[in-house]
């Protein structure tokens, strides 16, 4: 251990400086602006909790579309994507090294195509003309006569966004859980086998998960953040904000809509505080679930 008084701060200084400037200060400003009426031109005017009151009582788009969409999206993509990531990581640990390296790379590959690339790929698949892959298949099977315009049909937008989000959710958290499963001491399993543990399911719940809780938690936090961040893909896929009939509108899009299209910065800031609070709440909840023993 190095114990000189000022040395540590010297090492930390560059990081802390940038961390404060681009993470702490913006978050603090969002919290402050959330209490104001601000149109980006005149000085922000303090209005107390009015933005929050409006958001939860007046904003019909938020209440009827954004909030239900976000809850549905978060519940499916968060726990669903997380469970899938664990299942895949656990299964990968049961096969040999060579095939595991190849398969885990394939599973991770969508995480390398962030943002735009994702929309290019999936637009091609769901293209609303006979040239689209899905439409071509549907037509050949005789299920449709006219191609379905997936991105303009409110009924399809959300399921597509959820599918794409899950597709791209096998990221850092997935890799962490894979490493976690692989690092569990093999003798634990052997001891359990001697003690009469028979089913693989018992093994998962009594050995695997308890032995890799820290990785499970890291994976959970990463998948929650990833899920909320992925909210932007609806706009990229449909090519418009708001998405058609607000069918794919999520928190991130709503904030952008008010902030950069309507220039109601105070209101948009209040919405971003709500988003950060939701993410924090989800992470605390997963911490509780995983710590509980």
């Amino acid at each position, binding site marked *: 251990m190095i114990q000189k008084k000022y040395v540590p701060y010297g090492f930390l200084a560059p990081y802390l400086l*940038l961390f404060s*400037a681009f993470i702490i200060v913006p978050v603090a400003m969002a919290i402050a602006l959330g209490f104001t009426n601000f149109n980006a031109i005149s000085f922000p005017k303090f209005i107390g909790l009015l933005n929050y009151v409006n958001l939860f009582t007046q904003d019909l788009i938020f209440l009827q579309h954004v909030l239900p969409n976000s809850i549905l999206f978060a519940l499916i993509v968060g726990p669903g994507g997380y469970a899938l990531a664990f299942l895949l990581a656990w299964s990968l640990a049961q096969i040999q090294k060579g*095939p595991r390296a190849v398969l885990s790379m*394939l599973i991770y590959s969508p995480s*390398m195509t962030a943002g735009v*690339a994702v929309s290019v790929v999936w637009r091609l698949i769901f293209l609303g003309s006979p040239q689209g*892959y899905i439409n071509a298949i549907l037509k050949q099977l005789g299920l449709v006569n006219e191609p379905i315009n997936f991105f303009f049909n409110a009924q399809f937008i959300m399921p597509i966004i959820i599918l794409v989000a899950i597709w791209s959710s096998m990221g850092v958290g997935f890799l962490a859980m894979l490493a976690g499963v692989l690092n569990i001491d093999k003798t634990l399993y052997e001891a359990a086998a001697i003690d009469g543990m028979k089913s693989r399911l018992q093994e998962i719940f009594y050995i695997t998960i308890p032995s890799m809780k820290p990785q499970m938690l890291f994976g959970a936090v990463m998948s929650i953040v990833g899920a909320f961040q992925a909210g932007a893909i609806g706009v990229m896929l449909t090519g418009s904000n708001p998405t058609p009939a607000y069918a794919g509108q999520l928190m991130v899009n709503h904030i952008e809509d008010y902030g950069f299209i309507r220039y109601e910065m105070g209101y948009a800031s209040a919405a971003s505080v709500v988003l950060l609070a939701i993410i924090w709440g989800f992470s605390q909840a997963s911490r509780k679930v995983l710590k509980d023993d």
Partner: protein
Amino acid sequence: MGQTTVNPDRFHKSQIPFYCLLVPLAAFMALPIIFIVFHAFKPMDEIFAYPPQFYPRKPTLENFRALFTAAKAATVPVSRYVFNSVLATALVVLGTIIISSLAGFALSKMDFRLKGAIFAINNAALMFVPAAVTIPRYMTITFLGIDDTFLAHVLPLLAMPVALFLLKQFIDQIPDALIDAATVDGAGALSVFFKVILPMIRPAVATGAILAFQLSWNNIETSSVFTTQEEVRTLAFYMSTLSASGAVAGQGMAAAATLVMFVPNLVLFVILQSNVMNTMAHSGLK
């Protein structure tokens, strides 16, 4: 033993159920990317073909040529976007690993009053979603006077909580005795960092580099929100304009551009995969 075990050395038929699960799912994950690869090499008539062809019959580099010449008509050649992307990404990767390994060393191996608090704040920041605070970030960037400059691509991305977290966790497992030995020999903190720590944390540095690379290389927010001049925008942004136009004619070019964006990510990951797995083993969050 006939049963499957974790991390087995050779194939056994009890592994078949796992392959039955993994292979179709891996195919589902990889297929869209394979689509785009094939699409990028299709000539115009095959892009418009009905029914759509999975693989190109007469593969061509036409789309790539179009991608790199079409923009000549625009204000800025594609090579400029590529140059901006490469330079910005190189600086972000280098900057991120330097500042976060320095900070990780301090948080892991030094004793000081705010240590616990700083680590706790950084852990909370793992949940930070930049898109949520785009507006105040924009204000900060304008306040610093770096909007519309190249620095807007670099500075805001350098403090990466995940990179610091992974590096700190990795440094934790280096025995204190090694550092003490070097200190007794008269080495200062900086020379301990360069001579003892850095050589031992290569896997974590590689992982931080990959994450920083992905963040910067795929970033369009900076180009679209923090800049107005084409000269300082990046390849990812140019790509987003191609796909946003939505025209079928742009499809081949968009596919080619996606491929150009994707390949560096893939190559880097393949080279550094074992380093990443090694680092992730220490990624536990308590």
